[in-house]
């Protein structure tokens, strides 16, 4: 099943897209995307709402036909071999893909049969997965009575019931409160540890992508940057300086002369302190701190990286 399908095709690439594009009347939702994701990789596609994440995922999952470009998933072409692609993948949609009128077990039975699984196999996996996702005592409840977090967990169970080699997760934690978001992440961790499946996830909660092997930023349908979260954050600098003040423009200009171009967000200006050591930053504060109403030094995170590249700035 995994045999090379043509000379030169690297079967280790679980997902490979070249020049992938989707045009809707007057709008380029995805604009020439190139992505390669290796087998077993945990890949995060990050971007604000409307940036083209769902469209990308649905093209890779064969649900939307690309306007241009090509993609292979698990070695199969998404346009020419959609059924083979769908057999190899699981997709957890951004919005629930469950029948709210049926019970938990009935939903999984329905999904399993749709994937051509024998009833015995459905029963076994359902038991295991519901246990793993903390839903074992809900099996006979109608989905309509589940909380948002439980429904999301069940959506994921539904998406992995047929043991796909590649799993797509479209904003798995959207709309959930923090404890439930943490729970969902624990489940995904456990799944990855158990199965070693390739995972492509999208999110606009950037702090959640810290655990990814690699992340890519997408903005207005274009990939802006991609890399490992840790290296990125390191590239941004050792510290971030956040300042507020009555004359923010003047202060920012003065800081820019020392630290290089910064970012403005409302009443806050951000600067990266790349080479400066703590003593250098302290000197800077002694010099200009009096002009600021707030002066904060902190570690940079993925959010900063995103704001930086979203602003069109080079990470350098």
């Amino acid at each position: 099943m995994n045999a090379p399908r043509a000379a030169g095709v690297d079967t280790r690439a679980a997902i490979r897209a070249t020049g992938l594009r989707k045009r809707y009347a007057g709008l380029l939702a995805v604009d020439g995307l190139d992505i390669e994701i290796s087998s077993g990789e945990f890949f995060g596609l990050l971007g604000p709402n409307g940036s083209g994440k769902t469209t990308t995922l649905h093209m890779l999952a064969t649900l939307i036909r690309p306007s241009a470009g090509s993609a292979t998933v698990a070695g199969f072409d998404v346009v020419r071999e959609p059924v083979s692609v769908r057999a190899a993948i699981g997709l957890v949609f951004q919005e629930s893909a469950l029948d709210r009128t049926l019970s938990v077990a009935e939903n999984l039975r329905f999904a399993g049969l749709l994937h051509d699984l024998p009833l015995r196999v459905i029963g076994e996996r359902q038991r295991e997965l519901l246990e793993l996702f903390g839903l074992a005592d809900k099996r006979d409840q109608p989905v309509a009575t589940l909380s948002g977090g439980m429904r999301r967990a069940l959506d994921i169970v539904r998406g992995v019931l047929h043991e796909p080699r590649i799993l797509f997760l479209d904003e798995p934690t959207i709309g959930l409160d923090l404890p439930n978001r943490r729970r969902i992440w624990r489940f995904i961790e456990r799944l990855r540890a158990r199965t070693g499946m390739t995972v492509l996830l999208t999110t606009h909660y950037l702090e959640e992508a810290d655990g990814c092997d690699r992340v890519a930023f997408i903005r207005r349908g274009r990939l802006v940057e991609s890399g490992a979260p840790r290296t990125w954050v390191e590239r941004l600098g050792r510290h971030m300086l956040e300042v507020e003040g009555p004359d923010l423009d003047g202060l920012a200009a003065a800081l820019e002369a020392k630290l290089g171009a910064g970012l403005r967000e409302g009443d806050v200006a951000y600067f990266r302190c790349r080479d400066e050591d703590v003593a250098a930053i302290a000197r800077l504060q002694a010099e200009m701190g009096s002009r600021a109403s707030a002066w904060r030094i902190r570690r940079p995170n993925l959010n900063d990286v995103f704001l930086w590249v979203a602003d069109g700035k080079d990470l350098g």
Partner: protein
Amino acid sequence: MRMGPRFRPIYAVLERELLRMFRQRTRLVAAMVRPLIWLLVIGGGFAAFIGEARGVDYKSFLVPGVLGMTMLFGAMLAALTTVYDKESGVMRMMVIAPMPHAWIVIAKVVSAAAAALLQAILLLVLLVALGYAGRGAEWGLLAAALAATSLACAGVGMLTAAFSRSLDNFAGIMNFVIFPVFFLSGSLYPVRDLPPALGWLATANPYTYGVDLLKHALLPGAGSADFGIGLDLAVLALATAVTVAVASWRFSRESAYEPMIHVLADRAK
């Protein structure tokens, strides 16, 4: 990897359809009561001044029509739940499954037909118990008539569903599809006694041939049927094949379910 047609997905859709049918008791009861009202109230009323239609008393003449009505409504409503599936998450479960998308149409048509068939059989049991049907019926032909008619109705329902964007036009579908199909058939009056324009419309309506086949089976030799058995079966088979083919074509174009993605994108903002 095993390719080619798989039957578990069809079974999955069928099982869900029947489960929903038996859970929605009121829908099931309505499917029994509606035809009985037609038969007893309308049939009773008209029988009083029409007396006979084509040699049989009017109530007996109406029995094939109300049996057909159960299938028409049952199959159409079941097939139209596909529109609801498109709006809820269920269609997502189906489109991501590893089967050609045309297979969804086949599964839905088979399930809708099965639901309609079960309702027709329940009604038939009631009609036999009440003494309105059964005497002299040709049971083999009746079985074929029920199967062929419910499949054709399910096909028409699926075609309608494939072109409907939302449940909002449900009333429109009732008024512009189900009612015309029912009234412009031989259900209430013999086709050959209709004035020309209406007669042509009834002749062009595939459902007419289902009712006609039911007349052959329930009232053999009574002369209330308008066409031959062979023609009836051929038209029903053709109607099923064409509606399924067009609905499948429509469905294999992503636009049949893509709008939901746009809706999702908007809702997320």
